[in-house]
């Protein structure tokens, strides 16, 4: 076979959640990541060259969010009144300068630029609201450019609900600093102090002389602010004066999505574009073993329009991390031809190693301790306990499972010797700069030429709910295939690869043990956690449990340090698992002492602790809205009734970082079949300051729906060698008739001045709430997720 594009042993960068930013929550550390390089050569306004068009209407029209539309037509040059200019030189914009994030154009519009892209959750709406609020510009004048590495500063990828933190901290300070600078300029012009000035929709006027006025565009368009982003909130608006923050404003990105006018990455079309399909083993195997043995090109001899077959990746036989980048590509004139070629091409892969039959046992066997926390003498407390309880819980690998099979477009220009002149990739990846680096590595471009030669242009994609739903990999596929032919190539994965080659949320196993005193108070609590990837969430530490310990173990047992399957953060990484275990166990403790589950939680929280007090508030609010009747679980009325359909309700408390959430879930269980039907979910939600309550409700509802499905059905399975859950039948998702009705109780705390992200927090408590509701209805305790009818029947029979 030919090896058209062989990349020996490239070590790719993995899209990892930045621990520091994610763990510390708020305020965000401004110095990380994506450290600045010097200068403003990238968007050099003074040179007056390299201007690009940003596709949106003039001021007054609806704001437009774009990954840098029309760039593909204009290349890296063009013309516009936005003031946003494309790369003319090498450096990325510095991350500490107002100019990197906010540009005022000749048309009076304000453009926000950021690497924190929108995963379909409408986060751009928040950026617009913060900048409109702090700069005193109407929202219709604001546009957003997301994730174009040729334009935006590298603030890292979009993970861990960072966008609310970062926009609420950084963009807000930047916007306030920009306004201060504009007032200073206007003050000089009119010979007055900035305090004598007032702003209305981007026009500065002297308070006492309304005829003296000047627009932002007149003051700054074509020039730089040259102002560093302040490190504190001095100069930002007091919350009492907010007019836009806190308002339920409609998301600006929705209308075009309802009419087919939006351009998703799947919709990018370039002149002369070819269509590629990537062929990988059917379902990933242990450690992504992908050793290519043979490609029989004669098998596709009759396929029309076939341009090239490409074999790429570590095809020398390297196992371990990076195996996901191994593929055989077929490139054709038309898409259906590429599909035909991919289905006909005979590709032989080496047999992968066997997957241990019981992944959880294997996890216990190979787990090595990564961290421990100890508070007091646990053993001594257990020794004097009146009651000691123990339980083990497991949680499976689960998929992001994006609705759209992932896609990307590569456009690599080659010189006459076949060397790479430039490479562009259109992608809906969450981390554009990581993809840029991986494209560079794949194409063998020296590191110091990255920003000059490689450009990633973000486009809307299907929701990705974490990271690495396949997007970062298909982006490299597209660049490699384009480089093989020197023409633009669009690559879309098959459904089996989107399910089979993404990076899953990791499996977990938890062993929890507790001791209670004679009055039913927890005096000792031990939380032992095993995970396929690291996880330091100990849900027990949310409560005042007396003495306790927590131990975290991560999987080893593989020479490359990898996990069984690819893993990556999946919406509130690992927290639905840890909270399923710990909130189920708290219910078990409450039941053991015949306590009401709400009351039991409340009396183990300390109102003097500010975080625990907020927890108490959401638990009480959820219970109140639900109409919670105080009594122990299971429902005493059902204890004698072990047949038929019964209803129950369960509560779970699931804080995440600075977000406090409690959910009461009501379900119906058919005791003959084990089928669980979710009825109603009440979510009480406190993230501090609420930027947009309508967007917040949308996020909460979506997370309840998605996570209820994860609780009841979702589990990655394998056939002994490879992942076998490769479509929506083998990896089922709840149907339209099966979702619970969601009611959100929003607690707003504007006086805190800051708000935490809301894209993940409501995910945390759902699985535990479902398990506790099943217990309340039937007395059956589910300790293994998901709660399929078979598992529910098993638990019912064990009563």
């Amino acid at each position, binding site marked *: 076979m030919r090896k058209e594009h062989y990349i020996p042993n490239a070590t790719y960068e993995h899209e990892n959640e930045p621990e520091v930013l994610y763990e510390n929550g708020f305020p965000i550390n401004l110095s990380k990541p994506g450290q600045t390089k010097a200068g403003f050569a990238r968007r050099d306004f003074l040179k007056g060259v390299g201007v690009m068009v940003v596709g949106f209407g003039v001021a007054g029209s609806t704001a437009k969010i774009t990954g840098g539309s029309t760039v593909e037509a204009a290349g890296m040059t063009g013309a516009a009144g936005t003031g946003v200019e494309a790369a003319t030189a090498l450096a990325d914009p510095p991350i500490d300068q107002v100019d990197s994030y906010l540009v005022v154009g000749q048309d009076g519009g304000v453009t926000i630029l950021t690497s924190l892209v929108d995963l379909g959750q409408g986060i751009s709406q928040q950026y617009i609201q913060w900048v409109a609020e702090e700069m005193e510009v109407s929202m219709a004048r604001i546009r957003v450019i997301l994730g174009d590495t040729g334009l935006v500063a590298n603030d890292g990828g979009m993970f861990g609900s960072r966008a609310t933190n970062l926009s609420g901290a950084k963009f807000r300070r930047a916007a306030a600093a920009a306004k201060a600078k504009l007032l200073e300029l206007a003050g000089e012009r009119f010979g007055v102090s900035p305090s004598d000035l007032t702003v209305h929709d981007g026009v500065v006027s002297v308070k006492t002389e309304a005829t003296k006025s000047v627009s932002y565009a007149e003051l700054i368009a074509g020039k730089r602010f040259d102002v560093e982003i302040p490190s504190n909130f001095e100069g930002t608006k007091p919350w009492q004066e907010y007019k836009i923050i806190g308002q339920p404003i409609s998301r600006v990105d929705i209308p075009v999505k*309802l009419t087919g006018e939006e351009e998703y990455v799947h919709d990018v079309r370039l002149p002369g574009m070819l269509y590629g399909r990537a062929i990988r083993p059917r379902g990933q195997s242990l450690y992504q073993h992908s050793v290519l043995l043979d490609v029989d090109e004669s098998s596709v001899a009759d396929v029309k329009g076939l341009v090239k077959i490409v074999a790429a990746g570590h095809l020398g036989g390297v196992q371990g991390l990076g195996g996901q980048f191994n593929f055989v590509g077929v490139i054709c004139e038309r898409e259906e031809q590429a599909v035909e070629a991919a289905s006909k091409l005979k590709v032989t892969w080496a047999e992968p190693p066997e997957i241990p039959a019981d992944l959880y046992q294997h996890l216990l066997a190979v787990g090595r301790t990564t961290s421990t926390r100890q508070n007091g003498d646990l053993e001594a407390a257990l020794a004097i306990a009146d009651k000691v309880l123990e339980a083990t819980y497991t949680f499976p690998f689960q998929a992001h499972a994006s*609705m*759209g099979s992932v896609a990307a477009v590569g456009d690599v220009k080659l010189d006459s010797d076949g060397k790479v002149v430039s490479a562009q990739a259109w992608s809906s990846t969450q981390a554009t700069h990581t993809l840029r680096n991986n494209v560079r590595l794949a194409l063998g471009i020296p590191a110091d030429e990255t920003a000059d030669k490689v450009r990633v242009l973000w486009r809307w994609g299907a929701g990705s*709910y974490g990271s690495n739903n396949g997007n970062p990999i298909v982006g490299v596929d597209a660049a490699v295939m384009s480089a093989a032919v020197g023409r633009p190539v669009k690559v879309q994965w098959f*459904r089996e690869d989107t399910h089979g080659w993404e990076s899953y949320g990791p499996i977990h196993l938890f062993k929890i043990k507790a001791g209670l005193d004679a009055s039913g108070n927890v005096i000792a609590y031990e939380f032992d956690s095993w995970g396929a990837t690291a996880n330091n969430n100990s849900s027990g530490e949310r409560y005042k449990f007396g003495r306790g310990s927590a131990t975290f173990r991560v999987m080893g047992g593989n020479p490359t340090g990898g996990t069984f399957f690819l893993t990556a953060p999946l919406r509130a990484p690992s927290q639905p698992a840890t909270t399923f275990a710990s909130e189920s166990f708290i219910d078990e403790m409450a039941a053991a002492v015949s306590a009401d589950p709400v009351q039991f939680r409340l009396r183990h929280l300390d109102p003097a602790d500010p975080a625990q007090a907020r927890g108490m508030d959401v638990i009480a609010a959820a219970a109140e809205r639900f109409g919670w009747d105080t009594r122990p679980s299971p429902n005493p009325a059902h204890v004698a009734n072990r047949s038929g359909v019964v209803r129950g309700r369960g509560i779970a408390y699931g804080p995440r970082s600075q977000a406090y959430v409690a959910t009461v879930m009501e379900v119906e269980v058919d005791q003959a079949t084990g089928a669980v039907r979710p009825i109603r979910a009440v979510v009480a939600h406190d993230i501090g300051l609420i930027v947009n309550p309508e967007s917040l409700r949308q996020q909460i509802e979506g997370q309840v729906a*998605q996570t209820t499905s994860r609780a009841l059905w979702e589990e990655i399975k394998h056939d002994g060698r490879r992942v076998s859950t490769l479509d929506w*039948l083998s990896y089922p998702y709840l149907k*339209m008739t099966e979702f619970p009705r969601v009611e959100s109780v929003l607690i707003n705390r504007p006086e805190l001045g800051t708000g935490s992200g809301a894209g993940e927090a409501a995910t945390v408590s759902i699985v535990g709430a479902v398990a506790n509701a099943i217990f309340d209805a039937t007395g059956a305790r589910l300790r293994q997720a998901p709660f399929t009818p078979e598992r529910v029947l098993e638990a019912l029979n064990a009563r």
Partner: protein
Amino acid sequence: MSVISLKVNGRTYPVDVDPETPLLYILRNDLNLNGPKFGCGLGQCGACTVIVEGEAIRSCITAVALVGGFEITTLEGLGSTAKMHPIQQAFLDNHAAQCGYCINGFIMQAKAFVDANPSPTFEQIAESLVGNLCRCGTHQRILAAIQQYTGGAA
């Protein structure tokens, strides 16, 4: 290859392709329509839904030769942001989209269903959409939007 006459959104296009080609690829790649999306290629998710002679079909598994000469409507054929169809407006009023990748399927499926069943109950609406998946979990708002469209309580 054979020439097939495709009638899409009121216009006729002669297309010269392998008659087995899924309709979806023709709509997206030859007619440059963004509404119908490739979600699974297996008829499992509904993202590719278009309306053919009043019936919602999965264009990813429908050979183009089967629909030659028939009236095909895509999301673009309903309305645009300048002039939305009432069902699109109802989705907007209820903020019934997040990433929006599936939403073409929900709108087209619901449009065909309501055309045939003008006064459906809430349960009938939900039942008509069991073949469409929304991973972002916009279900509640989608159902409210369709209720609004049919004149029921939102």
